């Protein structure tokens, strides 16, 4: 628990660092006269054309959806992998929350393989459906 309090403190120090830099700069920075052109977003020197919150390519969104699947799956794998070596070496899982559970190494490997092949199958499915095609 102490470690996480330290991390919260670190987060606070980090925010303070950035905030302090921003405030300090606001106090000392040079400020020029406010004109119409000053607030224009950069667009190669011409006057800004239309709004910038436009519709954009759906491809980015699809990648984000596939990412969600794979990232969550890879996070699920971390606890599995944490005990994998322990199971291979001792044949059981020792945890502070329950009795030691005996598992044969080959069983846990088969379970992991099934999980992985479901993942790879998902990738192949997305690939075949054209989700990974950039047009």
């Amino acid at each position, binding site marked *: 628990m102490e*470690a996480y309090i330290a991390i919260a403190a*670190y987060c606070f120090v980090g925010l303070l660092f950035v905030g302090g830099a921003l405030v300090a*700069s606001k106090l000392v*920075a*040079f400020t020029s006269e406010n004109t119409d052109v000053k607030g224009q*977003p950069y667009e190669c020197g011409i006057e800004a054309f239309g709004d910038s919150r436009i519709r954009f390519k759906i491809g980015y969104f699809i*990648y*984000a959806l596939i990412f969600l699947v794979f990232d969550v799956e890879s996070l699920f794998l971390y606890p599995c992998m*944490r005990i994998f070596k322990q199971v291979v070496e001792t044949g059981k899982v020792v945890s502070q929350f329950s009795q030691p559970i005996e598992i044969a190494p080959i069983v846990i490997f088969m379970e992991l393989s099934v999980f992985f092949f479901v993942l790879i199958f998902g990738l192949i499915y997305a690939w075949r459906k054209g989700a990974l095609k950039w047009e």
Partner: protein
Amino acid sequence: MAKEELAKNSLEALKNADQHPVGDVIRKYFSENFENEFIAHVFSSSSNILLSILVMTAFAGGTASFLIWLERKVCARMQVRLGPTRVGPFGLLQSIADGIKLVFKEMLRPKGADPFIFYLAPFLPATASFLVLAVIPFDKNIQVVDIDVGALYVIAVSGFGIFGILLGGWASNSKYSLLGAMRAGAQMISYEISVGLGLLLIVMLSGETSLREIVFSQYGTVNNWWIFKLPIFGIIAFILFLISSTAELNRGPFDLPEAESELSAGFHTEYSGITFSMFFLAEFINMFIAGAIGTTFFLGGFLPFTIGIEGFDNIMFMIPGWAWFFAKTYFIIFLFMWFRWSFPRPRIDQLMNLEWKFMLPANLLNIIIAGAFLTLGWLL
């Protein structure tokens, strides 16, 4: 077993080393030189972590400015130029001068930009990269905190910086910024999977998630570093990690989000002065972090280069751990710089295909085959 009985360089001796000497050194200095009750209270042993946090934040700023100088120097040498030479010896103070200049520059905000999100965005990447530094073991006893889910923490927190880039690009109300942010988002989240799976292999092989324990799992000769561990899974994972972390850092050759010939400056087109420099700071701290994570997971962290011959090993152990750590980290950082100035930039579809159609399947197969080897006990 008593501590004296342990050999000086054995695994147990290294593991039992006292934590937080950074805080201790400062505390000792202050309590010896200022005899004041308030100061003694502030620098009591409970403030060790706070002191190491402050030192680490200062270190992060220093590292970033050093890396900016190094980048310019390496780039210049690769293009047969000299790079910065005027400010300070070898131009070392150049980035500090640039920093001072940036503080005095005006913070511009385009019309139509969302003020809250526009100023919130620079906070996120910088804070996220400070936070990752908290768990990195610089030496056997230099680490702010050692949390037992270190590997997960690194992935979770380093992913947080993407929010800043996406929000900043969207809030700027500029088309270049929006396009750059969308590219950055798609690229960084895609390659984050590869980084995660590369580290997952090491978590599987070592059976540890705390970064300090992962370093200790590589104790022994150089063959025990996960990169050199036979058979070749470690080096495959290292190469995939290197490529994907280059892409996650938005560095060349994968610098599509800020491709200057297409998008002027990508997501930070509209940022100026100190807000821009916060993005820049985060980028360079992230480069250091990528090097440090690569070192910790694959190159044996702070452990010295030992080959199993006692005399040689003892000489190697005389070099302090942090020196080994920084040497290995800067080696990886040099590789990143070398990539940047050697390879041409790919198109966005080529970049996405590289991740989803090559690196992701390669990573998955690498892990499952390594799992089979581990189950059968074939791992040397």
